[in-house]
């Protein structure tokens, strides 16, 4: 732990925070302190500017043309999510439950928007247990898709962040694995950026903590009865 009352340790920690070498625990401690410690924040800003020109050592890379539209959609969704008042009768479910724990702020805003849309779509006549799974990239925590499940209705897989751009000859494959199951069950290939509906009968079960994931596979899908490529998104169902 950093002794933030010790001037030398504070300065050293501020520098290493910007450099990127603080161990995870100390980084959390420093980030927490930055909220209220203006002098520490000033040191961090100072190091940001001191070290900025080292960025030139990385060669520039041209973003794909799809990147800005993706960012733009995500930002517009955040704006819509924060501007849209949630009807009081429906506000309670997401405040009451630990549904959104562990999501990053950006993912949270997106997820809330999606949640509101899904709830509205389900309508007041819907009955039986309902579940949502927010599928996130395991590295970046970026939210990519949301799964909605309810007895008597088809499963809906809804893209959040726009269409994934796939390498040539590859496809997205959708899987599920109930808790305690020996292995995953394939739910077939998914078109990037498109809503998928599946009859519930295709699923081995519908329950809380059920794992859903999307992996990158050969064009015709995994040749095996399990994923062979990297996991792009995954998440577990929570009751709503």
């Amino acid at each position: 732990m950093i002794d933030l009352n010790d001037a030398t340790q504070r300065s050293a920690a501020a520098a290493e925070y910007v450099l990127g070498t603080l161990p995870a625990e100390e980084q959390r401690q420093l980030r927490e302190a930055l909220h209220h410690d203006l002098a520490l924040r000033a040191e961090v800003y100072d190091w940001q500017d001191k070290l900025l020109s080292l960025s030139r050592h990385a060669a520039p890379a041209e973003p794909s043309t799809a990147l800005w539209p993706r960012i733009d959609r995500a930002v517009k969704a955040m704006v819509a999510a924060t501007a849209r008042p949630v009807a009081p009768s429906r506000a309670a479910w997401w405040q009451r439950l630990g549904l959104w724990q562990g999501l990053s702020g950006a993912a949270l805003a997106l997820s809330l928007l999606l949640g509101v849309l899904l709830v509205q779509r389900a309508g007041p006549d819907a009955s039986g247990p309902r579940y949502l799974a927010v599928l996130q990239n395991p590295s970046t925590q970026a939210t990519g898709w949301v799964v909605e499940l309810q007895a008597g209705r088809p499963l809906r897989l809804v893209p959040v962040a726009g269409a994934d751009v796939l390498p040539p000859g590859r496809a997205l494959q959708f899987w599920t694995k109930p808790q305690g199951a020996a292995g995953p069950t394939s739910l077939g290939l998914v078109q990037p950026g498109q809503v998928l509906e599946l009859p519930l009968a295709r699923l081995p079960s519908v329950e809380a903590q059920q794992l859903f994931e999307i992996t990158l596979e050969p064009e015709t899908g995994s040749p095996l009865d399990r994923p062979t490529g990297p996991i792009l998104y995954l998440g577990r169902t929570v009751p709503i």
Partner: protein
Amino acid sequence: MPIPPSFDYEAAVLACARGEQFALRALYEREARWLLGVALRIVRDRERAEDVLQEAFMQVWQHAHSYQPQLGSARGWLYTIVRHQALKAVRDPARLQVLEPEALTALSDQMASADSAAERELDAESLERCLQHLDEARRACVLHAFVDGYTHEQIAARLATPLGTVKSWIRRSLASLKECLV
């Protein structure tokens, strides 16, 4: 990185804080290829580097109100967000390396040439001048940490140097850079 002085980064971030979406686009158009380069160097995978940039721009939008122009430049603030997002992505234990071997070779070739080009350009820079005051191994520590996003442990392995030595080299290098840059 030729940056025309006419672009006002501070004004752009403050405009984002007021909810003006065109300002985010202006920042993107001005900096995206440099920021993607920074992220790509750390995560070493194009697709993931673009995900990093998307997350980072969403954070810029969300946290623009917390940027304090009196404390430092908006560019420094922006690059820190992108670098921290890239470090977060690359240090997640669940991450998967998806680059094919040929792609990795191509990437490191490209990096090597960028390095020498950058070095030629930067002789006059004060930071580079101060870096030159450090001995070669210490300079390598700072660059591996900042540019490649390496941890203390990765640097120690790369330089075949004990971890404790690497930690103290980095700490002392930063202290002498601070003194030199005043």
